[in-house]
């Protein structure tokens, strides 16, 4: 019995990097005051580029992970170029990225059809693979950077009050650009993890909803590093339980409803954060361009 429970817990926890990395990427991006609505597109693009590079660029699982991180960063560079350098509407450009990323991944997969089966595994430790520990370690690193270093303070300052940051000698747009690129890379790695370790392949519908779930987690976790980590563990557990129940045929509500839950979560989360006001930790300058007048 205990063995069975342990195996269930392990199988649920092994999904942590999927939501964890995506949420971490979003956290880094949004803390600096930039919306990135295109999470789903970037995640799917990351998943595709991982499968692609595994098939055509030497079957190395680590290289695939890095390659997809690079592709994700490219999306970050584009977002930074359009929204930070040229000050376009971040939400609309992100929306475009969502579509373009999804479409590009599906299109390129259909055209190139990389179908080499992924047989390599990440090294395991206590029956959880190394990426799980990497995710937790990254969370701790981000926590320390945000709370105990000058650079972390600069990022938070760019999100809360860019003008004050500029007066203190921080190059606001540079900080935001770096954060956007790093964040996009992390999101792509989340997608790559699903493709390489969880699903072992690519499917056009594989990310469906997880990106928006990351959004909901970020809002419910109140933008604090460990709050977000806790929330993503809870959501991971819920997703895992839902999958288990679905396999056992014990699901008490229609699948469509479960699919919709994260989206309702985003609306409710935004609503609550707007009603509760300051306590929610949404950066004050989120989505507001910084112009030196």
């Amino acid at each position, binding site marked *: 019995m205990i063995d069975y429970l342990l195996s269930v817990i392990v199988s649920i926890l092994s999904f942590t990097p999927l939501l964890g990395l995506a949420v971490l990427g979003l956290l880094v991006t949004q803390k600096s005051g930039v919306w990135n609505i295109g999470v789903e597109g970037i995640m799917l693009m990351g998943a595709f580029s991982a499968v692609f590079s595994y098939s055509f660029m030497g079957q190395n699982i680590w290289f695939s992970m890095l390659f997809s991180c690079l592709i994700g960063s490219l999306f970050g560079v584009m977002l930074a170029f359009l929204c930070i350098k*040229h000050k*376009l509407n971040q939400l609309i450009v992100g929306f475009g990225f969502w579509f373009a990323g999804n479409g590009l991944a599906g299109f390129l997969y259909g055209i190139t059809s990389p179908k080499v089966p992924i047989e390599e595994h990440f090294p395991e430790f206590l029956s959880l693979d190394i990426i799980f520990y990497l995710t937790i370690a990254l969370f701790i690193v981000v926590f320390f950077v945000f709370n105990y270093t000058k650079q972390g303070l600069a990022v938070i300052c760019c999100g809360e009050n860019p003008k004050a940051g500029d007066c203190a000698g921080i190059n606001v747009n540079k900080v935001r650009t770096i954060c956007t690129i790093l964040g996009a890379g992390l999101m792509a790695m989340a997608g790559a993890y699903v493709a390489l370790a969880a699903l072992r392949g690519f499917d056009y519908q594989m990310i469906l909803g997880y990106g928006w779930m990351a959004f909901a987690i970020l809002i419910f976790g109140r933008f604090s590093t460990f709050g977000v980590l806790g929330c993503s563990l809870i959501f991971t557990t819920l997703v895992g339980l839902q999958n288990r129940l679905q396999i056992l045929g014990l699901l008490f509500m229609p699948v469509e409803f479960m699919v919709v839950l994260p989206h309702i979560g985003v609306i409710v989360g935004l609503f609550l954060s707007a009603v509760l006001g300051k306590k929610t930790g949404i950066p004050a300058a989120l989505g507001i361009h910084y112009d030196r007048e």
Partner: protein
Amino acid sequence: MSPKSLYTPFTELLILIVIITFFFIFTSQVRELDLGKIFSTFLNASFGSVDNFGRALMKMTFIMVPALGLTIAFKCGAWNVGGEGQIALGAIAATGVSLFLPFNLPSILTIILIFITAFVLGGGYAAIAGYMREKWGVTEIVVTVMQSIIALALVNYLCSGPWKEPAGYIKRTPAIPADLALPSVLGLSAFFIIGLIMIPLVHMLINKTTLGYEMRVVGYNKKIAVPHKLNVTKLVILSMFISGGICGITGAGIVTGEIYRMQVGLTGNFGFYAIAALFMAREKAKYTIFSSFLLAVIYQGVLGLATLGIPRMLGDILIGITFIVAILPEIRLRLKR
């Protein structure tokens, strides 16, 4: 030549054509297809025959009508990007009324009832987002996107569960009664005419009425609206309601004029194409017909290319790129200053 004069809608068109050509060349290289064949298939889907042209015109209507609706919201400064969900709700309303109306009405009255229900349901759905924005300052862009996904899931649920056709494996509802279908000639249903009438109506509403003027003032600058004693909250919610309602009508038009039932994927991303059409038309009602025809050609072309085995996700890429390309004029506005 100043950078300002370089950036016209034609530049946008040129960028899109270059990108499409790039994707076609890429496809022909990888799949070893003839480039000419790809192009001819792409264009044949809309211009190959009278039937195909009629289909393209129908698609144009389904893109143009929501684009006209969204124009009203955008003019008022409310970024309603959830046309897709409002179309879906309109389709749900139309199917619900035509299949489950408990009493008998003459068919013309039923059709009118269908369109009114679709208008109210779609408009109400959009008005929620407007109310949330005005009351609590929640970003309407995110809320409307989320609402679309929820509405699409509702369509999936109804088509696979409660309203499913008893016989058959396809996820769709039974066909609506034949007398409720809009009359159609050569594949063009009466909804095309409704769409054409809608252009001058929306244009007049925005440019020639007091309400339209007030909405434009709110959209242009809220700070001006307050000393003029305009009720910003009411205007924003009203503009969202009308725009959502017009999107809802599109849903009813798809059900009664094109496929005569509700099925999974009936909205076909028209709501998202509509936003692209709206951006390309520079938020002007009279130009939407051109931009939506262009996008309809792309839509039909991508569907046609699927017969060559080219994934239909090409359409999604083009929507995404159109969004970004169409919002580029904001850079131009800054250069002008």
